[in-house]
């Protein structure tokens, strides 16, 4: 068990590689109850949600969700979040555990609307059922037609007879579902999911596999790829920024950055030499320090050592020879196209 933002969480159950492969090939289940939830309700709930996030909330339909950024005025990330539109006057935000209180205060500080903000993390447990057999597993426990929930849509229904929010979302690069249930029911539902998935070889999965899976899919992790000093454009997340949607916190800084251009950008790499370029290691270009690794790990799916790093914009493209300083030794690597892994549709 490790302390993860105040939560005791297993890094692994049976082993990171075994858990990782279960999700890529069949199904795995993650207890991600540490994730935070914030609810925005009221006549101007949409206006507040739109004002504090980068993506275009007005485009969301009822029952739809999207990935978005919560930014400071200077354009750096407060957090990366999922915004779910529950009703015209109700938005449900899934946020990072360690950022929950900060996010809540940030949204409240910008609430000049007719809307109420609730820090609702204690009311929800969250389980992620992920992998090609995730749907077949979860379908045994719910009358909701899971096949009818499109990617990044959700529905409020029941799982194991308990009211649950069922979202076709995930952090693994596989199809799958994230379900939000009352904390008192989480353990029972966890066991039922494991039973339902037994015939497919379901594995309970920890933080370790969650990290290798999301890294292969090039999904950002707060504190690694993004933080208060990084803007969405630098993090290669320009697609979640809708500058033409109207005013929002951080927009002015992003407009300026778009005009002047960013000076560094996130890029993927593969190790060529022996070693793993890990978080925080320096990246060298032509013998001089040029950037840093944000995440690095063996990729169980690809059988290579992969990672993400920041490099000066003129070098942030695939095919560049770089060196990563691993315990005072420069080790060869090369920048590559991302994502590292994309599931066959």
């Amino acid at each position, binding site marked *: 068990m490790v302390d993860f933002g105040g939560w005791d969480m297993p890094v692994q159950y049976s082993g990171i590689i075994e858990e990782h492969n279960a999700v890529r090939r069949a199904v795995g289940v993650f207890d991600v109850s540490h994730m935070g939830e914030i609810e925005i309700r009221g006549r101007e709930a949409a206006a507040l949600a739109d004002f504090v996030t980068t993506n275009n909330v007005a485009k969301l339909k009822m029952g739809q969700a999207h990935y978005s950024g919560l930014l400071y005025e200077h354009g750096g990330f407060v957090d990366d979040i999922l915004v779910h539109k529950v009703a015209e006057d109700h938005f449900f935000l899934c946020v990072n555990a360690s950022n929950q209180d900060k996010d809540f205060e940030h949204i409240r500080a910008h609430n000049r609307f007719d809307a109420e903000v609730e820090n609702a993390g204690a009311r929800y447990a969250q389980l992620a059922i992920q992998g090609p057999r995730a749907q077949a597993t979860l379908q045994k426990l719910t009358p909701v037609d899971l096949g009818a929930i499109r990617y990044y849509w959700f529905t409020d229904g029941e799982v194991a007879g308990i009211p649950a929010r069922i979202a076709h979302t995930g952090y693994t690069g596989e199809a799958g579902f994230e379900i939000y249930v009352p904390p008192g029911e989480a353990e029972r539902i966890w066991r039922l999911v494991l039973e339902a998935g037994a015939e497919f070889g379901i594995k309970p999965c920890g933080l*370790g596999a969650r990290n290798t899976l999301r890294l292969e899919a090039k999904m950002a992790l707060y504190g690694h790829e993004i933080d208060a000093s990084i803007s969405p454009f630098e993090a290669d997340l320009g697609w979640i920024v809708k500058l033409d949607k109207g005013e929002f916190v951080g927009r002015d800084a992003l407009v300026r950055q778009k005009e002047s251009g960013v000076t560094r950008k996130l890029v993927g790499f593969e190790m060529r030499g022996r070693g*793993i370029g890990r978080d925080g290691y320096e990246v060298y270009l032509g013998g001089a320090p040029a950037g840093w690794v944000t995440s690095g790990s*063996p990729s169980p799916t690809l059988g290579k050592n992969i990672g993400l790093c920041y490099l000066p914009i003129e070098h942030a493209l695939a095919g560049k020879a770089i060196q990563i300083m691993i315990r005072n030794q420069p080790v060869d690597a090369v920048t590559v196209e991302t994502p590292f892994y994309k599931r066959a549709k």
Partner: protein
Amino acid sequence: MYPENFRYTKEHEWVLVEGDTGTIGITDHAQEELGDIVYVDLPKIGAHVEQGKSLGSVESVKAVSDIYSPVSGEVTEVNQLLADAPEKLNQDPHGAAWLVKIRLSAPAEANLMTAADYQSYIGAEK
């Protein structure tokens, strides 16, 4: 689980002393904490290692960790198995996946925790 004839460190290495030779490895508890091991870096034959100093490193999917030598001396053998099959360290840490053999320069150093001491130590650590 933990052989009686080994001695153990708080950093989860073991040493087996036979004459003036010490065989060094990491414990089953260590491999379990580390998870899937992908690299093992070891010193070269002839290198001098010192008790409590880094002898090399073990890298798992999630992190890299130093191995601290339980005893001082000169490296006389390095387990070649681990260069090609680092995962053996997960499977047989007290047997086939020993790390190095050392000619002891201070045999009295090997007066470390017994198997029973070590088991109560890791029991208390949890």
